[in-house]
């Protein structure tokens, strides 16, 4: 059977950065397996600028960001199998795939990197009552249709959800001559970045209705309109606040779910909150030699963070394949505490050097302190927002102060000083 040192499942930003890092850290044969016809993943349809400010220190569009990594992949002699669907991965890191050229094939890998990304939540996942007409799209599908296939999915739209993809699509549809009647958000605050609220909605006088949701969809063949309602603090629609908006299209921008069917089948332990694998600081999953990076692990806000995370993953995978990353017991667990929804990585095996933790808060707060419970380790932050991932780096000096703890609990509290 064909053997590669590191096999990367998925050729998006996470997969490419992991493959590059694996190669640069001494893995001899590195192979990316991608189901699309080319590398780049979802970046290829994100034609707007705003990428790369942190990683490349300049503002790039999605395709430009992708192309920088595609060049590196080519320069380093990383192999690719395109148009190839992975069907199974097993504990011994045997990969079972299918593509039009080879039919069914097998591959053995010294280490596997899971980088399958995520997919969009659909209408089914949020249960909107009404008829089932054409004209209901997830924002990302509409983005692919407009930006890559040259098709405009509708002329009069309502967008449900104020996540960044939804906001970007509000602008894109408007520029292409369609009318966006409203962006409807169930939460009392917008989910997307402030920059996108400004440049995608306010710029084009598109109303943002907070604490509202779509309560019914009308139309037989095609969407003819939607009913929106205000919601109370428990997100239940308030009777009497219903309003009808005529439209031919409803876009859903209601969240992303890591795509972990392969991981689950392989037996990788998943975190019920992130829906991604439980990983240690090397981004190794509960199965030895299987690593994860990017949106398959946790849904990120910025591709720059994905690239950085995937570098850790790729390097670890290379070390493992070379036999330089030995198995260790769990040293401590990172636990979400007050106003923290999740923490990644969830497990530490070494607990030294420096480890960057990513977390998301439950509710927005101003002037906060991130505290590790029952310790003198704390960090100040100007704000904590559910839409913006929080990052904190624990260094050697912190770990010394946390020595002996089996659990480190992260709390986000008001900063009184």
């Amino acid at each position, binding site marked *: 059977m064909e053997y590669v040192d590191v096999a990367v499942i998925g050729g998006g930003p996470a997969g490419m950065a992991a493959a590059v890092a694996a190669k640069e850290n001494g893995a001899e044969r590195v192979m990316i397996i991608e189901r699309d*016809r*080319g590398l780049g993943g979802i970046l*290829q349809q994100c*034609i*707007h*600028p705003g990428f790369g400010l942190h990683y490349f220190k300049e*503002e*790039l*569009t*999605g*395709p*430009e960001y*992708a*192309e920088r990594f595609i060049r590196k992949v080519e320069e380093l002699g990383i192999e690719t199998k395109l148009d190839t669907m992975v069907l199974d991965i097993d504990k011994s890191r045997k990969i079972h795939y299918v593509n039009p050229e080879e039919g069914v094939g097998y591959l053995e890998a010294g280490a596997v990197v899971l980088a399958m990304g995520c997919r969009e939540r659909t209408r089914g996942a949020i249960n909107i009552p009404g008829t089932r007409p054409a004209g209901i799209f997830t924002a990302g599908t509409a983005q692919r249709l*407009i*930006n*890559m*296939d*040259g098709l405009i999915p509708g002329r009069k739209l309502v967008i449900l959800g104020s996540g960044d993809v939804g906001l970007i699509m509000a602008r894109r549809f408007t*520029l*292409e*001559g369609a009318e966006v009647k409203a962006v409807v958000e169930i939460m009392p605050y917008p989910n997307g*970045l*402030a*920059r996108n*609220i*400004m*440049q995608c909605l*306010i*710029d084009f006088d598109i109303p943002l209705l907070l604490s509202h949701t779509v309560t019914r969809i009308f139309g037989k063949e095609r969407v003819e309109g939607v009913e929106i309602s205000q919601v109370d603090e428990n997100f239940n629609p308030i009777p009497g606040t219903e309003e009808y908006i005529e439209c031919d299209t409803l876009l859903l921008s209601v969240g992303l779910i890591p795509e972990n069917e392969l991981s689950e089948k392989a037996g990788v332990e998943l975190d019920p909150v992130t829906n991604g694998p439980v990983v240690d600081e090397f981004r190794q999953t509960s199965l030895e030699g299987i690593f994860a990076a990017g949106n398959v692990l946790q849904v990120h806000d910025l591709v720059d963070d994905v690239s950085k995370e995937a570098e850790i993953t790729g390097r670890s995978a290379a070390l493992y394949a070379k036999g330089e990353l030995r198995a260790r017991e769990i040293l401590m667990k990172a636990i979400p505490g007050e106003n923290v929804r999740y923490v990644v990585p969830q497990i530490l095996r070494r607990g030294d050097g420096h480890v960057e933790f990513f977390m998301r808060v439950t509710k927005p707060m101003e002037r906060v302190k991130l505290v590790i419970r029952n310790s003198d380790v704390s960090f100040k932050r*100007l*704000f904590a927002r559910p839409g*913006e991932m929080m990052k904190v780096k624990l260094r050697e000096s912190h770990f010394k102060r946390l020595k002996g703890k089996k659990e480190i609990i992260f709390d986000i509290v008001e900063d009184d000083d």
Partner: protein
Amino acid sequence: MTEEKEIICIGCPIGCKVVGIFNAQKLIDIKGYQCERGREYAIKEFTNPVRVLSTTVRIEGAMVPLLPVKTTGPIPKKMLFRCMKFLAQVVVYAPVKMGDVIVKDILGTGVDVVATRTLERMERKI
């Protein structure tokens, strides 16, 4: 008769709400900013807002029917729709390299439109 316009400052992640007060379309006061950079950004936004435009043009002979493009610098916000109309008429032929100039000095703005993706020549399979 004074009029108010609200913007969100994008200078940093705090995202201050800044209100501009206009009298007969002339900016007379700004409220809500928290730093000098914010004030400068707001003045610019209220008097001469500019944006980078990213969109697509048609391409023949590539794997996909559209080529993503962007302006190399910001253009006046009021020119966005005119540039969109103009770019809707543009057709290019593969191969195209990332960074290739697609339209020079679009509509006299002094800003070029460039390709943001490399697309090789390839017959498209349906």
